[in-house]
């Protein structure tokens, strides 16, 4: 929460957006895979619990989830959340892991039975087939939908301001309170540049994956 100078203030605000973005990705990518396994499990109770979990997370606004994570511990148990940033990370990771898990599931289910059969014929175990044959093909197929989701995440980090995270939009709104409007609209540049870099990166990843012909 710094700043008499708008540019400095916006930049330090955007660093918070980036931090939230990076931590969320780092944790939600693997957690999403775990949720996928649960939702595809043959153990029915686990499968249904996971489906309900995904329904709840995708069916409620992220803003509400942020409020729940930050305020519920204090309101229900009298133990206030120690860090707002941690609260934001928890809400974002759970939310994005739920979305990622469905993208992963779509990818995994799109792989033809033939791939599994081929692995079996070669005497591979089930986990070998998954990690050595299926997974890389899944990765290639899910790059476009994941790019979408990750780009959305970049902009969603701005929502963290509702629980008092001093991210870039909140930093900018401090200036509108002092009678300066331009900082609010200049925040677009930060997002545009970052998403531009991400788009180039995803394009490059897709190209790299081109050697798979499936």
């Amino acid at each position, binding site marked *: 929460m710094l700043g*008499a100078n708008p540019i400095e203030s916006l930049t330090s605000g955007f660093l918070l957006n980036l931090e939230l973005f990076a931590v969320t990705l780092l944790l939600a990518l693997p957690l999403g895979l775990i949720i996928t396994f649960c939702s595809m499990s043959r153990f029915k109770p686990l499968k249904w619990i996971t489906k309900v979990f995904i329904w709840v997370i995708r069916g409620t606004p992220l803003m509400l989830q942020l409020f729940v994570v*930050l305020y519920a511990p204090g309101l229900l148990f009298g*133990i206030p959340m120690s860090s707002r940033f941690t609260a934001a990370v928890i809400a974002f990771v759970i939310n994005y892991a739920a979305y990622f898990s469905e993208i992963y599931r779509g990818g995994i289910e799109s792989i033809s039975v033939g791939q599994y059969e081929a692995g079996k014929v070669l005497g591979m175990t089930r986990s070998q087939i998954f990690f050595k044959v299926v997974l890389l093909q899944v990765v290639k197929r899910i790059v476009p939908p994941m790019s979408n989701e990750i780009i959305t995440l970049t902009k969603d980090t701005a929502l963290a301001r509702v629980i008092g995270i001093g991210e870039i939009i909140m930093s900018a709104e401090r200036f509108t309170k002092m009678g300066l409007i331009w900082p609010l609209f200049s925040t677009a540049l930060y997002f545009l540049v970052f998403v531009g870099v991400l788009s180039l990166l995803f394009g490059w990843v897709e190209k790299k994956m081109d050697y798979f012909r499936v």
Partner: protein
Amino acid sequence: MKKFIAMALFSAMCVTSLAGCGSSNGSGGSSAEGGTQAAAESDWEDVSAKGEMTIGMTLFAPMNYYDENNNFVGFDTELAQAVGEKLGIDINFVEINWDSKEIELNSKNIDCIWNGMCSTAERQETMTLSAPYLYNTQAMVMKADREDEIMSSVDGLTVTAEKGSTGEGKLQGTIADDDTVEVSAMEYFANSNYVASDSMAKALMEVKAGTADVALVDSVAAYGMVGPDTDYSDMVINVDNNFGLQEYVIGFRKGSDLEQHVSDAIDELYADGTVAQLAEKYNLSDLLIENDAQAATEAPEAATGDTAAEAATAAAE
């Protein structure tokens, strides 16, 4: 097949162990704090044990803001710090989302709201409030070149105010007019269209963008936003109509004993002249509400509203 089930179980274990991790943290915290909580339903004991009071605020001049040298200053900032010194505790300022201030308070994320908050009947119900320390009035903000037109009649024009603010309450009649009111905002704007804004800053942006003709906002906040060096230099603040006076108070959890301790410290700061000095420093002297003890000995002229409203106008200019 078995391997796959094993893997699914393993991942389920990961999830539960993650969850277990979270809950063990939680229970660790509760056992540590549960003790103090059971022993003390007292906010003051909690605060003095921690040696820190957390104040929820939003940044706005002249109450809580950063100056050109990036120092955290403001009337409320310095007054709170002086109170902290008196009480021997640190003051921790947390920037909150103003819409969530009640929930921030009740979830104990903050110990009080100290940010130029107007006293309202609703807040008297839901919070324990300090004695009032500053006056505020509702100001009309509009484009300078339309001031004559708008001040002659607001019929058919669009007026905006921050949702949940005093301005909105006055416009919609949810905040009853008291004896400090000379012009009833509800009657004055009876033939205007009302549109709610997200914040006072957004209300001014509505006027700047032309989506509203006039904004009704806290005068103290308005003077912090409109000025020659801002994007609102083509706008003016008009306080010709006295829509009544509001009082700034500090909000604590309902029934909190922290209020007494803070108020005692403020009484001392009134007595030694610190409060008056701060008001002078931030150009708020005319809006300062005298301390109960002092006010009792003097004529309660401020209570009539006239003088204070004039003072508010004068201070503004």
